[in-house]
């Protein structure tokens, strides 16, 4: 076998004085509850959206086209519905992605960087999404 390598002599503090005491985090608590409550809302919003757009449309023999959007976003109810869906899905999904990054990227700076990127992208898409719903003019043709 190979020659003996001297182990690094470890003079660990045998008392194992504990690391600094962990601190409560209202932030994580908020997001934990948010994921669950938004999830509940999304069951209706997201599944409802998918059902209408991809199932009902077929069953009623319609098409998704500009006209369809026009008629839908002509009513404030559907606009509000889609806005809420957008906000919740984005917040829920992006926070989920944040959690996933936190789980797998343990290097401090890398994690920070990735989260910043995620946040930036999400912000842009959020603004874009709101803009679409807000600025779409159902009267135009």
């Amino acid at each position: 076998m190979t020659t003996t390598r001297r182990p690094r002599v470890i003079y660990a503090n045998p008392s194992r004085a504990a690391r600094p005491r962990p601190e409560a985090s209202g932030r994580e608590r908020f997001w934990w509850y948010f994921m669950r409550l938004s999830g509940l809302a999304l069951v209706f919003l997201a599944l409802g959206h998918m059902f209408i757009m991809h199932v009902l449309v077929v069953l009623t023999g319609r098409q998704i086209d500009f006209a369809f959007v026009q008629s839908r976003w002509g009513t404030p109810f559907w606009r509000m519905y889609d806005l809420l869906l957008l906000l919740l899905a984005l917040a829920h999904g992006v926070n989920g992605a944040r959690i996933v990054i936190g789980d797998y990227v343990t290097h401090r700076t890398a994690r920070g960087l990735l989260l910043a990127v995620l946040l930036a992208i999400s912000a842009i898409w959020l603004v874009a999404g709101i803009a679409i719903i807000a600025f779409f003019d159902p009267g135009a043709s």
Partner: protein
Amino acid sequence: MTVIGSATPRGAIPPTRTHDLDAVVVGAGGAGLYAALELKQELGPEARIGVISKLYPSRSHTGAAQGGVCAALGNTEEDHWEWHWFDTVKGGDYLVDQDAAEVMCRDAVETIINLEHLGLPFDRTEDGLINQRRFGGHTRNYGEGPVRRSCFAADRTGHAILQTLFQQCIKHEVVFFDEYQVLDLALPGGPAGPVSGVIALQLSTSELHAFRARAVLFATGGYGKVFKVTSNAHTLTGDGMAIPYRRGLPLEDMEFFQFHPTGMYKLGFLLSEAMRGEGGVLLNDRGERFMERYAPTMKDLASRDVVSRSIYLEIAEGRGIGGGDFVHLDVRHLGAEVLNKKLPDMSGFIRTYFGLEPLTDLVPIQPTAHYAMGGVPTDIDGRVLADETGRVVPGFYAAGEVACVSVHGANRLGTNSLLDILVFGRRAGKKMAAELANLPEPIVDADAEASVQARISGLLAGSEGERPAVIRAELQEVMFAKCGVYRTEELLTECRDAVAALRVRAQRLLVQDKGCRYNTDLGDALELEYLLDCAEATVASALARKESRGGHAREDFAERDDVGWLKHTFASRDPASGSMSLAYKPVTITKFEPRARTY
């Protein structure tokens, strides 16, 4: 045999590190942890109290205890500590030092209450008090009938005790040196003392450390691993007994070893007395309930030593199952309710390890080496005695199974061991705290450090010899067969010679692992040496005692002999010449005159 690992043995051992502490506790079982906690509480947070343990504290064998710990709380029915005192003395076949037993039984109540205050999860009565149940040998009004005296946390009382004490030690910031194996005492002035610390091997690095302190407590547990079939953990190798013994200090009453009747066949794990308490019976090859012959009144619930001997006799007369060396425990008739609710762990063991279903199958059992009544002699405050005259070794304390106070005499009652480790662990801690200021400043024992270094280098240097496991297996075999439940002059003489021969062979051990990290192969070799020392003292003491009493049963001297043998054995070995000598100390009798022991 070949050497595996690196080709060249490691040259020198890394330099010795020194730690200055106020007091050192060796062993992190119930006894050691309670002592450390007490030291911290007495001396305040500034005190540097170190607990050195070769296992992580929560791995200590105290955690394996099942049944309970007794104290005359009287929570469910009338009880008095004097009754408990009597039971202890009688259970120990009158070899008990009655002043010590008095202290234990009196302190028991306060100690158990204190444990509750520390957070121990005792089972509760309807009124929210600590619940209590019956256990073998514990009686009301000096033997009138069974009494509920055992306090318990389900069927894992030991686990609860160990956890609670470990938790409180964390709270009080006891310094733990985990996975350090103590190899020697610092005794710069010779065996008479004073003790000024210990020398230990850090298992993770193989470095030697010198711990200097004015007071040292040994609480290293038992040595059940000298026997082939035992309920004890692999790590119970009698280190704490062998170390002072090698330095010429005596070991008391080593011939008294308790064999528990219902060990799982071959494996040795305990099947609690509760199995018979609930109605289980023992059967031989012919399906006879043989205990009816040996103990007509108590039958299967006679005391542990009696039942173990009866099983042995059945086996010796060829009525073991299939002529083999085990009998059956029959619990089939207890029903699913009792087995699954009252004895869940036991039923689980049977299912896991035997693949048997206790409801339909007979369970193979055999007596298993369980508990060392003997050990390092101490007074009622844990101070180690240098000889049979009662001279103490300054700065040296012992408590728990390693010690012999003697509260168990010739046979320990169920639940009294946990009580012993708690009461005397705590008392030793208190005494150490009180005496600390008056003990001499610790000084270095350069000789001891050098000799430990030499020992280890010697073991690592050899490239041929026998594997420790081979010798250990032979030792366990011969001790179980010849110094076991039943003993005779002939068997013991053979055993003595066999142990001596093994000691010679053990001078050339092959340690294959030459590395520094967790060299558990080296650990095996060191522990084997300790086992051999304990075996030597045990056999010598047993050979000399020509009577039968409690755990020591001689076929050739079947009767108890109070005239000749109502005394404690002190076995010691002269470190210079290597010759063994035995001395005797009278039993302290304060209240209960020896009487015939019938149940």
